[in-house]
């Protein structure tokens, strides 16, 4: 069953079904959860809640991190 999420503005299709939680998604994408902040459909997800946050088809996920800036 293929399902789709929108991640940082780009559609991403999962052929084997969705990762169960946000933490699993980050792990699969090889992103260190400690360095990012996430928003799902405009709602900020606290880092402590990544492992309990279940994903649903069609959600729009923003993954954001700090970069150098003035």
């Amino acid at each position, binding site marked *: 069953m293929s399902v789709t999420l929108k*991640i*940082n*503005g*780009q559609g*991403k299709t999962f052929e084997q079904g969705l990762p169960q939680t946000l933490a699993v998604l980050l792990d699969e*994408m*090889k*992103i*260190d959860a400690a*360095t*990012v*902040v996430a*928003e799902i459909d405009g709602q*900020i*997800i*606290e*880092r402590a809640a990544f492992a309990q946050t279940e994903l649903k088809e069609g959600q729009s996920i*923003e*993954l*954001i*991190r*700090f*970069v*150098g*800036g*003035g």
Partner: protein
Amino acid sequence: MRCLEILDIMQKLKIADKEFDSRLFVGTGKFASNQVMAEAIEASGTQMVTVALRRVDIDNENDDMLAAIDRTKYQLLPNTSGARDADEAVRLSRLARAASGIAWVKLEVTPDPYYLLPDGTETLKAAEILVKDGFIVLPYINADPILAKKLQDVGCATVMPLASPIGSNRGLNTRAAIEIIIEQATVPVVVDAGLGAPSHAAEAMEMGADAVLVNTAIATATQPIEMARAFKMAAEAGRIAYETGLAPKTTASASSPLTGFLRDET
């Protein structure tokens, strides 16, 4: 003879409930590497560094720049760069709080992509929302004394007027207006943007600015680490000059005695 330590004679800077020995804030953009950035931060003596928020690049490996910043030594000041209106700035501020665990924000709303000048009305609107939401708000503004007063009145912790456009290195183009802001402000005035040389930073501090924020002039210098040290010295020199009181300007006044010349009076 007693040798005074600079930090002993400079008054501490207080923003919200936090005290700072250093009056130089440093931006972390445009450095050639995290290593150079970390060493420049160290050399600058700063205690507050700005950072920005951007999307993770999902196709490439991401560099964790925060790992290069010792957060026990340097307070993070996330900015809202990229925000084009109040709503975007509020959203970025809340994301920054979730990411950093602190509620300090350098509020900037810059819809103009060419000169990157700040939008005063949107900045004021966002500041009101963020202050009510518990943020310590440090707004980046044009050197507008009326706007500075309004931002102070809604509870901003500082005002940060620009010297000249961001990254322009053009120095204190707005000097006269910043003098009025300094004269009237009851919150610290941080001169931000456009300070291109240590002499510009010293000039702002001599005028009575409470702090200066420098990024491009350090990060893009030929030797950023040494330049960071030069800005440290300049900010300290300017501040000490302000605190100790500059001698007044006159038409002319001889420094050497006007008697005992090696000639006979006629």
